[in-house]
């Protein structure tokens, strides 16, 4: 029996919950491994699809519907057939129980209809060229099981019936659980793993200890000083590969309650000067142990969305994304931000004082470190900044309401820069989501993004995206700092076939936000002893 030992999730006790709709409560091996997605989009390869339950999909020309074709002969792990009925059932189900709809997709769908036993059509409310990305992240559940569940929100699904490679829970204790081969898995020939074992590990140091002694094969965990603490223990087998992920940026509220601050924040020169005063490399090296990737792209795309980047951005506005203390100070001086009242801090050109309070959630230490490092240069440049660390919920609320002056904020990685842009700038989300924290209202960008989902031609799409980038880069509503890494540690002693920098065939991070892990799992081969 081939057993793969994995740490995907840190906790002090295992709770038997495999409800795929339970975002915060289900075991992190539920999605992808128990409930196989229709398609896995490969972010590392420009969203190239790996077809899983679906063998193809097709977007209608008017972009108002999308049709998925399932493979023939799919079976649930209990032997029942998996058909288009199950897909339709699932979407009806999340409409009936909105608490299950963790990606809020129902709102975008007009209807979901079965075309034949293996074909399903999703009719959209609005044309959307990117809808497939969203649809595939909703798990499909077996109708014959879930139709009998009275309260699916609290249902723990202790003995899951699924479609993925590893559906059988053979052992479950608070300390460890094992998830084994699905007897009816459609892609069994490619699956070389019999079981996955998940020991309960409570925090980073424990994961590190397990990794260092070689008992873990695959993990995702922050590890300090990884070359010394992990790799050096067995350089031949202990490996890691960190890929850039969510964007961390400084943000200023354009609607901040303080009138004087608001004046400065709405001045692009002030924002540019701030950006030039952020020592990104030091932040990455010290607050991030060198793991994150510096993001000096004023449009915010950076390394993560390199494929979509408009080279014009760098030539025209590139200097505003780079740390240059002198230039930053000079820009402040030339724009009239000088110390008018002699208190040692720079004031607005009209003489009113600026006092910035950078909010970071309590306990988010790497961010706190990053802010502390940034404050040093900002203070040296004469800007009145301090830091406060409210409760995460308070911070979230402040960001949603735009009632803060400055903050660090993060945006999850996505398949396409469209997503970070729409999440950050959509005025419809002002007051609803913390991602729109800057409250930067730009009709032109919104217009471009709206068109972006409604055209199918890649060239046309690129033109739209290029234009949007220029506007964003010029206005600098977000001050990018770095892309945080997604952590991926692995051990080649017992298994081969790992994705790495040389062979980046898929994103191999085992966290439950990355469906690519399914492809990685199937690529693993035991090392013959």
């Amino acid at each position, binding site marked *: 029996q081939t057993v793969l030992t994995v740490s995907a999730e840190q906790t002090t006790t295992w709770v038997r919950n495999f409800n795929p709709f339970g975002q915060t409560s289900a075991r992190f091996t539920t999605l992808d491994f128990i409930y196989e997605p229709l398609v896995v989009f490969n972010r590392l390869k420009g969203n190239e699809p790996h077809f899983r339950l679906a063998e193809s999909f097709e977007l209608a020309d008017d972009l108002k519907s999308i049709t998925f074709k399932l493979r023939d002969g799919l079976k649930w792990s209990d032997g029942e057939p998996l058909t288009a009925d199950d897909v339709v059932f699932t979407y009806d189900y999340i409409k009936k129980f909105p608490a299950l709809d963790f990606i809020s997709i129902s709102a975008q769908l007009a209807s979901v209809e079965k075309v034949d036993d293996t074909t399903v059509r999703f009719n959209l409310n609005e044309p959307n060229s990117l809808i497939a990305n969203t649809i595939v992240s909703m798990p499909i559940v077996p109708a014959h099981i879930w139709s009998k569940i009275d309260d699916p929100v609290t249902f723990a699904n202790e003995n899951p019936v699924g479609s993925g490679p590893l559906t059988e829970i053979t052992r479950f204790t608070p300390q460890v659980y094992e998830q084994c081969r699905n007897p009816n898995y459609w892609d069994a020939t490619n699956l070389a793993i019999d079981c996955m074992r998940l020991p309960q590990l409570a925090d*980073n*140091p424990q994961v*590190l200890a397990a990794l260092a002694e070689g008992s873990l094969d695959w993990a995702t965990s922050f590890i*300090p*000083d990884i070359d*010394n*603490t992990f790799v050096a223990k067995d350089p031949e087998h202990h490996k890691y590969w960190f890929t850039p992920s969510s964007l961390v940026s400084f943000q200023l509220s354009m609607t901040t309650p303080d009138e004087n601050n608001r004046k400065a924040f709405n001045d692009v020169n002030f924002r540019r000067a701030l950006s030039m005063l952020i020592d990104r490399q*030091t932040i990455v090296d*010290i*607050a991030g142990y060198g793991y994150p990737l510096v993001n000096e792209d004023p449009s915010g795309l950076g390394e993560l969305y390199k494929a979509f980047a408009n080279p014009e951005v760098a030539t025209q506005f590139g200097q505003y994304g780079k740390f240059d203390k002198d230039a930053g100070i000079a820009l402040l001086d030339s724009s009239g931000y000088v110390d008018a009242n002699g208190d040692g801090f720079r004031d607005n050109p009209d003489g009113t004082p600026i006092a910035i309070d950078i909010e970071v959630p*309590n*306990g988010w*230490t790497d961010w*706190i*470190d990053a802010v*502390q*490092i940034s404050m*040093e240069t900002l203070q040296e440049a004469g800007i009145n900044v*301090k*830091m*406060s*660390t*409210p*409760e995460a919920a*308070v911070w979230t609320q402040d960001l949603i309401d735009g009632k803060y002056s400055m903050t660090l904020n993060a945006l999850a990685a996505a398949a396409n820069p469209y997503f970070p842009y729409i999440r950050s700038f959509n005025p419809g989300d002002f007051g609803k989501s913390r991602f729109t924290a800057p409250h930067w209202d730009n009709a032109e960008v919104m217009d471009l993004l709206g068109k972006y989902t409604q055209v199918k031609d890649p060239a046309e799409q690129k033109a739209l995206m290029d234009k949007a980038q220029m506007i964003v880069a010029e206005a600098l509503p977000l001050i990018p700092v770095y892309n945080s890494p997604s952590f991926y540690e692995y051990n080649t002693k017992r298994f081969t076939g790992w994705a790495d920098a040389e062979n980046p065939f898929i994103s191999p991070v085992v966290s439950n936000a990355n469906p690519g892990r399914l492809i990685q799992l199937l690529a693993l081969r035991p090392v013959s002893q």
Partner: protein
Amino acid sequence: MRQLLNNKKAVVGLTILILIILVAVFAPLLTEYSPVKRVGRPHQPPSWEHWLGTTRLGHDVFSRLVHGARISLAVGFGAGLMITIIGTVLGIIAGYKGGVVDEIINFFTNMVLVVPNLPLLLVLAAFIGQASPLVIAVILALTSWAWGVRVTRSETLSIRQRDFVKSAEMLGEPSWRIMAFEIFPNLISIVGINFIGSVIFAVITEATLEFLGLGDPNTVSWGIMLYNAQNASALSVGAWWDLLTPCFALALLGLSLALINFAIDEIANPRLRTGGMLNRWTRMVRLGEGKL
């Protein structure tokens, strides 16, 4: 006070404490680095430039230690004072007034005593969020006075039976005066022990709360130092100086206060005193000058 200075434990304790206080007062003179600026590479081991090495962020550990003493002392003594005042006032009132007043105070005291203190503090601090040292001191004071009330009350109960309280009553002294001028001066040692004990408790608890991540990261205090070191995995990366420095500082402060407390106890209760006479006694017995 003179008795304190005759007590060896008190002298050692006071010396350490005064040293720590002096260090805290003259912190800026003692350090060449700012405690909140990066002045070196991360996690440098102790060296000539950085006596106690640097933190993960590259702050000078010695500088933070010295400046951190201020917060630890301020919270310790501030909260200790508040705890003692509340405890003493309520204790004297309950013990002296008796009756319904006593019943009520006593009920609340016992209530507070049976609610586990640290967990409650933890929850309060978490709910309040970004608990600055001042906030910590205040919630400490509001939740930790009960022990003081209990001991002060029981001592007051025994003092109020003493005839000098009665004679003050017979002279027609108002009751506030009896509490403040007749009873209180006789509680000095209890109050002193309560105070020092509360200071120890406050110092420890502040450090604990901050260590658990419920403090304000803007502060430079020993608890925050512990928190940062723990967060930077100081132990697993071998930066022992980062973690052990605040540990030893806290231990030293705790020890000095405990010594003082012990000494006050000995002074208040002559039976506990050992003093030099026992040494002399042992020597004399050994010399054959006599026996028991």
